[in-house]
């Protein structure tokens, strides 16, 4: 847990610039398959992870770069993963939607909406069972609150009092489907149905997210059950970078302008003296310049090893050739 406003600013700034550099690399053809940019939502990952310990566990989503970076993964190895290089976090086997770094407690971004909550619940339960006083935080979007699998996870975590913070990043849209067109009742109401406390926060304010998370984490670590935080946010960019090529008309320009006006990087930056902000910005630029260089200089994996790591037991699969 850090109350350090500079560190919080550094995290949101790092994620912001990481995503902007990644989009450049998508356009340059260095990142294939595109990405789901986290732009605009940085305050949530930064705020939540600032309230966690290094040994706490998180899971992310398809829009997951921010979660992995905020929990402490190396941006250079993260970028190498996006570029499909052997030096990447997942040795080039996962890419944008599956980035994982077990060493810093990231049990993976998960590309199936609503799927990670139960996985994290099991992992936290297992660690608590052996005496570790850890907690977990699982990120998901507003689209996931209509997935039965996630609601089942709410029930299990609440029933067995597993300290998992369910963090709903409500950016208003599940791809192009607005919340009003998809969510009956409320998101907090779903938590209430399982007896879970729910807190609504301004996801654009990293400190508000951090403080709400810290309060929940304190209760959970002391033996409380799971909680839900619904963070209201706005996605500044596309659902996925394919929208940079194929424009989809689902968000009114005035709404986008209103959303972008509340910028978590600017909000947190305004809390710092200009000179401090400039120093952080310069340090982040240097870190990312080195990360891009590292990623692009790293070798691609050898196709002969395409199915390495398929089986942890050492089983080898038959090849597909004749």
């Amino acid at each position, binding site marked *: 847990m850090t109350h350090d406003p500079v560190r919080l600013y550094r995290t949101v700034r790092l994620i912001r610039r990481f995503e902007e550099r990644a989009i450049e690399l998508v356009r340059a053809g260095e990142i294939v398959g595109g990405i789901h940019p986290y732009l605009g939502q940085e305050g949530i990952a930064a705020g939540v992870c600032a309230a966690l310990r290094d040994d706490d566990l998180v899971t992310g989503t398809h829009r997951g770069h921010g979660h992995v970076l905020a929990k402490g993964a190396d941006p250079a190895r993260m970028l190498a993963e996006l570029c499909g290089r052997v030096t990447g976090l997942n040795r080039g086997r996962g890419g944008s939607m599956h980035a994982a770094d077990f060493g810093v407690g990231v049990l993976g971004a998960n590309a199936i909406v609503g799927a990670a909550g139960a996985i994290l619940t099991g992992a936290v339960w297992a660690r608590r069972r052996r005496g570790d006083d850890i907690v977990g935080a699982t990120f998901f979007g507003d689209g996931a609150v209509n997935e039965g699998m996630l609601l089942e996870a709410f029930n*299990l975590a609440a029933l067995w009092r597993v300290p998992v913070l369910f963090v709903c990043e409500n950016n208003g849209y599940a791809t192009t489907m607005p919340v009003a067109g998809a969510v009956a009742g409320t998101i907090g109401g779903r938590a209430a149905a399982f007896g879970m406390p729910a807190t609504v926060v301004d996801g654009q304010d990293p400190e508000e997210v951090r403080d709400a998370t810290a309060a929940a984490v304190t209760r959970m670590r002391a033996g409380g059950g799971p909680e839900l935080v619904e963070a209201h946010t706005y996605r500044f960019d596309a659902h996925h970078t394919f929208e940079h090529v194929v424009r989809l008309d689902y968000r009114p320009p005035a709404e986008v302008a209103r959303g972008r006006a509340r910028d978590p990087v600017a909000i947190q930056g305004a809390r710092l003296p200009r000179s401090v902000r400039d120093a952080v910005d310069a340090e982040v630029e240097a870190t990312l310049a080195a990360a891009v260089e590292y990623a692009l200089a790293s070798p691609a994996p050898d196709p002969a090893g395409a199915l390495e*790591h398929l089986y942890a037991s050492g089983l080898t699969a038959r090849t597909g050739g004749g």
Partner: protein
Amino acid sequence: MPRLSYRRALTRALADEMTRDESVFLLGEDIRVAAANVTSGLLKRFGPERVVDTPLSEQAFTSFATGAALAGLRPVIEFQIPSLLFLVFEQIVNHAHKFPLMTGGQCAVPVTYLVPGSGSRTGWAGQHSDHPYSLFAHVGVTTVVPATPADAYGLLVSAIRCDDPVVVFAPAGAMDLRADVADPAPVPLGRGVVRRAGTDVTVVAVGHLVHDALAVAGDLAGQVSVEVFDPRTLYPFDWDGLVESVSRTGRLVVVDDSNRSCGIAGEIIATVVERVRLLAPPRRVTRPDGAVLPFAPALDRAVQPGRDQLTAAIQLTVKDG
């Protein structure tokens, strides 16, 4: 020699592994009272922390087990009904199975999915009578179908010790078997066994059908010398063991309780003909394409592979060349 029932072999395997390894625990519906009569006595012996009854939330508790495995435990999930595997196919295939590769080898997911009573139990009708082992072989999840009490013990032990997800199908048609088992021991995954030696035709039989194949082989003795090969593990399959058998007999018949299209019988035949020049076209006896088991007992039986069909397939194969 002590008589061991198939069911108690499963119970004993669970108890022995829980005793041997603190990280093994059980998860499932109604397992504390042992509704499926497999986890009997384990709650008393190991306590509620290691014999965990779940709500009816198959998707959540299957992924919960994945998470527990990521954190170092070895969960065993019991599914009371084989078709529940359809409900959790996503959790097993898209998460548990894919995590090691997707993370570049950062983790292992040692979960065992135990299905006591797979296939038809007669009278349980359309949604409780499936035998979906071929689906798991197709996606590359380790899949075992023990035919005997000794193998039920030995393969379940090996499944629990395996660092990858393993599905253990215990066929309803074998669950009431008893056998003399002096000293139950682990059975290696991926190794088949010749149950009866023969010279004219190799019959590959899966799970409980091994016993039908042995009965048919006995009935045909004097006319046809039938070798019965029990693969025991369907994925990874013991191709070398099977090829050795078929290379001697030159003929192949497969009896498999899967629906015909894309069932494991098709894969067995394809792989053998890639490697062995047969004396006659191979044959398979399976459930029909797209089978849904009807309720009435005569209809239920009519849809499953039967001894008459197997006998006819063997005789035709031998007649063909």
